[in-house]
């Protein structure tokens, strides 16, 4: 009886991606809350940065991994989101949640505008267009210092921490909640008919359109979702900095995002956590590495880029599906080996039986 009941519950959870993803998110949230409660303020801060990057990377993973498009402009979408939130905070001071939603919303609108011409482009042409966008956004913000605060930028701050929570931990919690919410939403989207449409368009546009999928609309939608994620992630990340200014969104940011997404595992969601960890820790690791080897003051920054590039090449050679793809392969491979060893009959007989 109990076994049957257990099985039906599993079955139901399996058929309900929303419930399943929510359950995962709640468990992860509880664990993360416990973790941030036990970390030092600085480590909390870094966990928050990772969470913010995860939001951005999840959007990029959806765009590239699922819909097969390519963007070098997501750093600029982060800037759009961050500036939107900062402008709302400076001028209206409305609800914090609304400000975050506005950051994602405005970035999504810009994403649609950029996505429409992008549907006619692919490969290097699409990369070129998004690259232009990444270059243009900081210049636009620099052109109107009265609105965008010029060099000094606009200050942003999260709402005051409730209860006895420290400011650092509260900020981290906000960023983690943001990351979990986005991951749940995107996970559901990937499981829905939209997710299937994205993958169909990625694999074969003609086949997809024959199957009744509006290819252009699907591509624009993926672009807009990816932009919304970048906008929200940029807004969350700017809360860590406390200031939004153009210097924080250079072209190299967009490129690092793309590299981190690929290394993490394009198309996966959990893989983006690896990507976020890389983005936050890579500069730190390379700094300590270069000081360990006495490479001199300037070497650290270049070393980070070199290591990033090296890891990217290694990942492409050894694990083309990124860290998450590699882990998944290990899991599947390990299980099959284990089962084979446990199988009591001779493999030949088993093969004959099959």
């Amino acid at each position: 009886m109990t076994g049957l009941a257990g099985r039906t519950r599993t079955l139901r959870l399996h058929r309900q991606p929303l419930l399943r993803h929510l359950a995962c998110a709640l468990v992860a949230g509880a664990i993360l809350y416990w973790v941030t409660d036990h970390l030092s303020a600085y480590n909390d801060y870094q966990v928050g940065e990772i969470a913010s990057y995860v939001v951005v990377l999840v959007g990029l993973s959806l765009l590239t991994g699922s819909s097969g498009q390519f963007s070098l402009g997501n750093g600029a979408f982060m800037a759009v989101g961050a500036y939107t939130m900062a402008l709302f905070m400076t001028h209206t001071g409305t609800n914090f949640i609304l400000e975050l939603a506005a950051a994602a919303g405005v970035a999504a609108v810009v994403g649609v505008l950029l996505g429409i011409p992008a549907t006619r482009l692919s490969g290097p042409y699409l990369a070129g267009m998004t690259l232009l966008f990444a270059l243009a956004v900081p210049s636009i913000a620099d052109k109107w210092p009265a609105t965008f605060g010029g060099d000094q930028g606009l200050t942003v701050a999260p709402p005051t921490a409730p209860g006895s929570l420290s400011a650092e931990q509260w900020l981290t919690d906000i960023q983690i909640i943001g990351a979990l919410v986005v991951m749940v939403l995107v996970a559901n989207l990937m499981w829905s008919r939209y997710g299937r449409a994205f993958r169909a368009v990625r694999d074969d546009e003609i086949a997809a359109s024959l199957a009744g999928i509006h290819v252009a609309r699907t591509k624009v939608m993926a672009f807009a979702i990816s932009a919304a994620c970048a906008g929200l992630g940029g807004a969350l990340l700017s809360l860590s900095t406390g200031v939004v200014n153009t210097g924080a969104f250079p072209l190299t940011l967009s490129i690092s995002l793309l590299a981190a997404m690929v290394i993490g595992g394009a198309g996966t969601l959990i893989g983006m956590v690896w990507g976020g960890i890389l983005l936050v820790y890579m500069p730190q690791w390379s700094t300590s590495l270069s000081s360990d080897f006495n490479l001199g003051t300037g070497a650290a920054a270049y070393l980070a880029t070199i290591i990033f590039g090296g890891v990217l090449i290694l990942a492409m050679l050894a694990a083309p599906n990124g860290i998450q793809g590699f882990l998944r392969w290990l899991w599947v491979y390990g299980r099959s080996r284990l089962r084979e060893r446990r199988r009591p009959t001779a493999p030949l007989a088993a093969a004959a039986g099959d």
Partner: protein
Amino acid sequence: MPQPTRRRRGAAPWVRALAAGATGLTLCVTMLSSSAPAGAESTPGVTSNSINIGATVPLTGPAAPGYSEIAPAMNALFAAVNAHGGINGRKIHYTYLDDGYNPANTATLTRKLVLQNNVFADVGSLGTPTQSAVQSFLNTQKVPQLFIESGCNCWNNSKYPLSLGWQPPYTVDGKILGAYIKANFAGKKIGYLYQADEFGQDVVKGLDMEIPQSSVVSRQSYDVATLAGPLSNQMSALKAAGAQVVVLATIPAATALAMLPAAVATYFPQYVIDAVGADPPTVGPLLESFAQKGGASAAQVSAAAGLLNGVITNTYLPPENATSNPWIQDTQKLLQQYAPSLWAKSGLDGNTEYGVALAYTFVQALQKAGKNLTRQSLMNAINSEGKSFVTPGLVPLSYSSSNHFGYEGDQIVKLSTSAPPAVTPTGSWIGGTTVGPVYATSAGSGPIKKYTGPTSTPPKGLTKIS
């Protein structure tokens, strides 16, 4: 039938996701488990025999050339102090991290310095956008943000009592250069080329307070983020407008990128260049290398640095070619002895001189703060006694509880081949001679006055402070 199929696929995907997530978390925790040092003392970063301070500076990236020398030069002075027992028995440990002039990096690294390294103060961090990004954080954490390497007017903000500038506000530079132009180039047509950010705009604000608007014939600007090639369009616009005097509020690279195309177009106006972009040992090599990259002949390349002949600029520290000045002599000795590799690479140029002078200001503050060093006692010492600190500055520091600016004065300098050259390991560069008196003024609309106070001399050798 479906049951075994599913079972063969292994655990449900959500279980796998959870497992992966858990693995990730475990890894995170292991990585992060290096906990912050316990701050048992009342004042973070201070023990009976040490003071831990930090900074974020550009060691790489667009702002690094030149500016990357400042922190190592500061460290040379701290090394000298430590070699003589430190200040009140405390040795200074200076950690400077590379933020690549990116405010996002500055934010992270400053948190690392404060929350993990437990620094007593942030001293000598560089840049307007970068330091604006952490001003609020440092003040909330009660960490002094001392002697920010930027002349932004924004440091004088009563909301942030722990943030102090050091070099003259850019508006003070602009006012003093503007007054010189008004007095010496009356009736001439004047043009501006400025960096389209806080720095350029603040210099222009000061210039406009002094120069009659009717004589300004053209205002050109450039965007530092996209500064890649010669500023030919801006210079031809200035030439077309007939500007006889061209004021540059430019970083060193932009100075070179403005003067070269003008020279190619045989346009030789009287240049007036803000101190930021006029240090001959910094700009001279840039002029030569850009001319070479631009395909100039060998003769033209060797003549390129000569474009600086006749340039009017300003200074708030003794010019580096003033080799009889005791501050310059002491700084040279200090760098030779305590930073030999820096000395071999850069020698005494505008940046290394700046670094030593700034570090010396901090050392004075520590001395005045006394044995019971706290963040409050340090701020009190600067605010109440900063005006009497003995530093290489041509005017005294003007710190008070309501003024967060350091030097508020300049002297005009004329670069000339007849002045003694500034000699560095990169070559021998056109030197400057000071013109007229030292002027002092405020960043606001206050008048420009002659500074008549005494000139400072180092109390005893910089190499022997303790």
